């Protein structure tokens, strides 16, 4: 990283809802400070001003679903010193990875009148299936404060302080009454990656796994508990097959 120039930041979008890159613009108190610390060199949603690469830090949102994007991500990797993926689409394929479990021709025909015009891959895959990724930030959507931590860490050349434990630990830390123990509510908290701050339990709702699997989750122990709380087999399948359906630890529950 040059000492005379500000480090360059690039933001890239693949198949996604734009929500994770919107998190950058949602950093209302820190946005202008961030814009002062880095040169925003590529960020289509925010500016029509672009600077040619290479870039010191690339943030990548979205999953790979077309041949064109499979080629484009190679180019993004080539011009990026550090590449960080943000959100469930980029880290696990996103909700659109449900196509991986179906016949994509049926999917296309269900949405479009003339499916022959649609060019799409049969799968939605995370960025890490295509190129080397330096760090993955999970969440659907990501937590903007964690994003700021990741950007700050990479700019200073240190490891981001992002816990890879479960949502359960966040509930305990916040002193939230366990919705499973107290109310018998089905909850993916024990197997889900921390980061949201135990949002759903704080609103009397069971976690539905939007941050994807934690490191080494014990899904085998959770499934019988979910069944005893009234979820049938299809219900268990659906709860693991939503926003992080293609993450290996969640996919294994459905396709052992």
């Amino acid at each position, binding site marked *: 990283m040059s000492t005379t120039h500000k480090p360059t930041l690039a933001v890239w979008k*693949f198949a996604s809802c734009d929500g994770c890159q919107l998190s950058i613009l949602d950093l209302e108190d820190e946005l202008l400070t961030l814009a002062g610390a880095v040169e925003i060199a590529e960020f289509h949603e925010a500016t029509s001003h672009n600077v040619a690469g290479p870039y010191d830090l690339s943030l990548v949102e979205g999953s790979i679903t077309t041949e064109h994007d499979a080629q484009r991500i190679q180019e993004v990797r080539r011009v990026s010193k550090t590449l960080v993926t943000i959100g469930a689409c980029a880290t696990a394929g996103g909700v659109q990875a449900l196509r991986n479990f179906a016949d994509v021709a049926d999917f296309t025909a269900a949405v479009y009148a003339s499916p022959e015009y649609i060019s799409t891959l049969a799968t939605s895959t995370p960025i890490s299936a295509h190129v080397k990724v330096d760090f993955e930030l999970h969440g659907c959507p990501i937590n903007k404060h964690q994003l700021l931590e990741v950007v700050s860490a990479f700019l200073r050349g240190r490891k981001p302080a992002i816990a890879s434990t479960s949502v359960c630990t966040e509930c305990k830390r916040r002193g939230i009454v366990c919705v499973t123990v107290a109310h018998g509510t089905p909850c993916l908290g024990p197997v889900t990656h921390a980061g949201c701050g135990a949002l759903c339990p704080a609103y009397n709702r069971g976690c539905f796994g939007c941050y994807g699997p934690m490191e080494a989750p014990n899904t085998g122990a959770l499934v019988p508990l979910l069944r005893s709380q009234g979820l049938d087999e299809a219900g268990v399948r659906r709860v693991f097959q939503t926003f992080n359906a293609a993450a290996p630890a969640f996919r294994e529950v459905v396709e052992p």
Partner: protein
Amino acid sequence: MSERRTIRTDYLARVEGEGSFSVQIDGGRVEQAELRIFEPPRFFEALLRGRSFTEAPDITARICGICPVAYQTSSMNAMENLCGVEVSEATRTLRRLLYCGEWIESHALHIYMLHAPDFLGYSGAVELARDAPQIVERGLQLKKAGNELMRLVGGREIHPINVRVGGFYRAPSKQELAPLVQPLERAREAAIETVRWTAGFDFPQHEVECELVALSHPDDYAIERGRICSDRGLDISASEYTEHFEEEHLERSTALHSRLRERGTYLCGPLARYSLNHAQLSPLARELAREAGLGETCRDPFRSIIVRSVELVYACDEALRLIDSYEEPDVPAVEVRPRAGSGHGASEAPRGLLYHRYRVDADGMILEAQIVPPTSQNQQAIEDDLCGVVQQNLELSDERLQGLCEQTIRNYDPCISCATHFLRLEVTGR
């Protein structure tokens, strides 16, 4: 001028999602304009099949990170319509309050970060902030107030987690809402300044002709409920939508275009809402609209930035009124039992009318889903407007025409991420 010209931008900046446009000119006449979408398809209508009716709000929220509450609300309206459920007054108040938060953050984003730089000659808000930090900070303050409201009522600002078919998972106490009052009062002041600021921009003389379509409700400026109405006499319930609207495939275009059957192109969004319902704005918002020189209707897409600013004032005003009138309910949600049939729901996303239709079986499993976002509905109007704007400004250089075309498209605040799963895609190897 008799030569052939093509005005184009291959990757539109400062819009949500990935799109491009081209305008063909031959012998001094605009032949056609095309707004192209190259964002990859995500197949929401297909992946909703086989999911429970209770999952539609969470899943459809992921269509758009900028207006998730719109998707959640239209889907809940559709499911409650299908199941024959009336939600409580407190639920309605909270839903409208949450929706005001989304209007505030989305309008503030569009006005300050995406649209105003066009009028002021900047490439984006970060560049604008170098010369006028206090202006950008005002926009960020507004956005923050909207986001705080969404975070408190919805749990988080992007893809809120607290909403459900029938109501909420947890209804906040009246006391919990109190900390929102001061930021919203400050945001209202910032919104008033926003109207005065945008009213001072330079606007070309320009109006569109097409029919204007928005929800209308006798009791309030329609946001989360209402009938689908137009300035030319359309007045239908959401369940009649498919009888009156059609999607047509034009050979020259890769997109499906929404049209009113036997009536043609229409426009939804802030201009339509204001023109149909402006008498229901709060007195303060009406007064500012008058001060800004808006009449009883507004058909000028360039002035949509003023209309959005007036709606910002209204959304702050309305959120404060709702917080004041809110009474915590005994139960956060009513029980909803599924039944077989079709349900229809609509609401006013920041960008305009958002229609959902679901067919569900007796166990509550979704058999079929149809989602029509505002950007798809406005695509024809945007392309017609591009033709008109270019025809009127042929004397400009290609570079200036290109900039004017981009501004013309941003006037509509298009959300390409929303439109994608609906529009016909042509993703070539380019």
